């Protein structure tokens, strides 16, 4: 699903920051992988490279057998339609209802109205929000907001879901709710990559753990711990 070959990312600014250095990585279809490591290790940078929000300074990245470097600018939107992205800060539209927030994501990729009308309630049911369709984000708890964000990420049936600290702002119980939903999505065959600081959760899930430090992979275990 995702392959990285000698990938490096250097930020040029006032000072040169080497965010990632010589990363080689292969995440298979259907896998659930945690990205862990201290702050500044390069986790977010790695996720941004995977959705081609940025290009690497060196190396090659393949996602779903396609080279992100050779991909043309106008092909990027169609590539992104295969990926769902979940943010730590939710990034919901505050003046839109839950329903509209999710519908928005598939309207943007030009799905028909009838498709929008069937998919949105179904996916909100899946994340357990079927009675909150007409609520506004500020009327929801943090965990509920993150579930809207998950619904938005998966409403398009993506092959791959990338989450950057999806539980970073949530208390332990709510974090587990969110984690369980992601597990359920993974069981349906969706590949999941999740950057996190949540040691306890990583230890209990017993999934693949890729540990980064100072921009390098320092550990990669099949059924690892934080």
């Amino acid at each position: 699903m995702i392959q990285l070959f000698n990938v490096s990312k250097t930020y040029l600014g006032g000072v040169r920051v080497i965010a990632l250095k010589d990363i080689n990585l292969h995440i298979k279809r259907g896998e659930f992988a945690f990205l862990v490591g201290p702050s500044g290790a390069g986790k977010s940078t790695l996720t941004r490279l995977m959705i081609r929000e940025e290009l690497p300074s060196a190396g090659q990245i393949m996602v779903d057998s396609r080279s992100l470097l050779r991909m043309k600018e106008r092909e990027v939107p169609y590539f992104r339609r295969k990926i769902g992205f979940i943010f730590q800060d939710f990034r919901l539209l505050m003046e839109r209802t839950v329903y509209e927030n999710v519908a928005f994501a598939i309207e943007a990729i030009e799905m028909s109205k009838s498709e929008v009308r069937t998919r949105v309630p179904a996916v909100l049911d899946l994340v357990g929000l079927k009675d909150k369709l007409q609520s506004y984000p500020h009327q929801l708890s943090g965990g509920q907001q993150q579930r809207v964000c998950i619904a938005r990420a998966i409403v398009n049936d993506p092959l791959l879901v990338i989450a950057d600290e999806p539980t970073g702002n949530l208390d332990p119980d709510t974090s587990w709710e969110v984690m369980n939903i992601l597990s359920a999505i993974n069981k349906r065959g969706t590949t999941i990559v999740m950057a996190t600081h949540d040691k306890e959760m990583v230890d209990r899930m017993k999934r693949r753990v890729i540990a980064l430090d100072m921009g390098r992979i320092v550990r990669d275990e099949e059924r690892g711990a934080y």
Partner: protein
Amino acid sequence: MRISSFQYALRDACRSLWRNKFMSLASVATVAISLVILGGAWLLVLNTQNLATAMESELEVNLYLKQDLTREQALGMKDQFAAIPGVDTTTYVPKEEGLKILEDRLGEDTNLLQALDGNNPLPDIYRLKSKDATLVPQIAAEAAQIAGVEKVRYGQGMVEKLLSLTDWLRTVGILVIIAIALAALFLIATTIRITVFARRREVSIMKLVGATNWYIRWPFFLEGMMIGLLGALIAVGFLQLLYSQLLKNVAMMVSFLPIISDAGSLLRLYEILLFSGTLLGAIGSAISLRKFLKV
């Protein structure tokens, strides 16, 4: 683009228009004002030209021949006059006919010849019609050189004045329109910039979920075009009201003035105004999108 995508874009455009109502209103008003001026100036120029053409067709050079010419000599001059460049037709009006015309004008039972003791004081006249109003002064000058011509008379300066008035109107009109159109453009661009700013979160999420650049741009374009079209509609309504009122009053007071009133030319003007308004809106959004929407 799919029908539903167009509906989404339309919905978003309307939502933005409503959210920035005051800015939208200011832009619509500016577009309307500039188009009212454009339409007004257009109608003025059209009518002045119409008037000029109407006068032109009346326009002729009158040549008064010397009294001592014989009838043969007078008739023989026709070819000389016809040869002057720009002359369309030449008409010979002998002094008897001139007298008759004068008598007709004075009233029914006048007998001028009797009153004048059988001496007709009028000269023979040649009437030269010009092909083009601008050639009239030249024709007059050339005719004056020909031997046997006593005096040359024509509607001195009228046509020149009218034509220079249309030229002047056109120049000033164009300058004023450009200035106001620029203001309208600036306001539309600012409105769209505010919308882009208000929707920057949406745009960033749209990009991440895989919206194409054109899908992202469309609502902004539509918003600009709707501002332009709305302004144009107001302008057309206003002009129609004003012009029909004017027509009514002018027709009552000075009925001989040839005012353009056929539905065809008005409809054409309105079409042009609606098109210009929409175009103005599209250009205004394009300016803002180029600068502020990095997609």
